[in-house]
């Protein structure tokens, strides 16, 4: 399924578009509480950009950029970030994901909430990104020889 795309048109346009997609995805992630979106949508867009590269650059190129195992690592890292932030506030006597209780005493609750949400959204995005790419890779390699 994943072979080098001989068409120069799609390949070059994808190369031009992918950085823009990723910047847009990061915007969606970091501005989650001002505009629609957030971690999940941003992660899905990041995964879409990787899929575009998978399809237009061929297996070898694309696996060098984003190895098949990286998806698992990203998903695990995202989950770890989410749990750490959540449990950090529990450890200081708040409830799960209560940003005001984060162990960063010199910051105001306002600032804490902003950075807490940002980090949690980033964790969610990493998880979604990694999971979607892993799902695609599994499906892609299963059906390749059919």
């Amino acid at each position, binding site marked *: 399924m994943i072979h080098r795309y001989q*068409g120069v*048109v*799609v390949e070059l*346009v994808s190369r*031009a*578009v992918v950085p*823009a997609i990723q910047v847009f995805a990061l915007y969606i992630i970091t501005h989650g509480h001002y505009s629609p979106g957030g971690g999940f949508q941003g992660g899905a867009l990041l995964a879409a950009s990787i899929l575009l590269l998978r399809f237009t650059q061929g297996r070898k190129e694309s696996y060098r950029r984003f190895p098949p195992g990286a998806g698992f690592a990203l998903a695990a890292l995202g989950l770890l970030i989410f749990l750490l932030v959540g449990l950090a506030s529990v450890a200081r006597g708040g409830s799960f994901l209560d940003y005001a209780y984060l162990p960063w005493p010199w910051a105001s609750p306002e600032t804490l909430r902003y950075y807490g949400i940002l980090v949690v959204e980033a964790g969610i995005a990493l998880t979604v990104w990694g999971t979607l790419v892993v799902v695609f890779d599994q499906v892609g390699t299963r059906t390749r020889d059919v």
Partner: protein
Amino acid sequence: MRDVVGLALIFGGLFFVLVSALGLVRFPDFYTRSHALGKSDTLGTILVLGGLAVYGGLTLSSLKLLLILIFVGLGNPTATHALTRAALRSRHEIWSRREGGKKE
């Protein structure tokens, strides 16, 4: 004034969106129909989005509309090319008047 120009662009774009829809119905085969997505729909989208940007004035949203416009102008012909290429590689035959082709 700005409203009038914006509206004129929007209605011009609407006409081309209409043409692309008509083309999708009336053209006889896949390759001819792809002209509807590659051209008419691209221009229709560009005109409507441009008209809305003019109507909205110089705001951040209008700049974002211009970004969508650029993206559609780049992406639509590329998608059309990818599809027609796939069809050609699968030896999908073109409709030709000379061979007395019948509408698919």
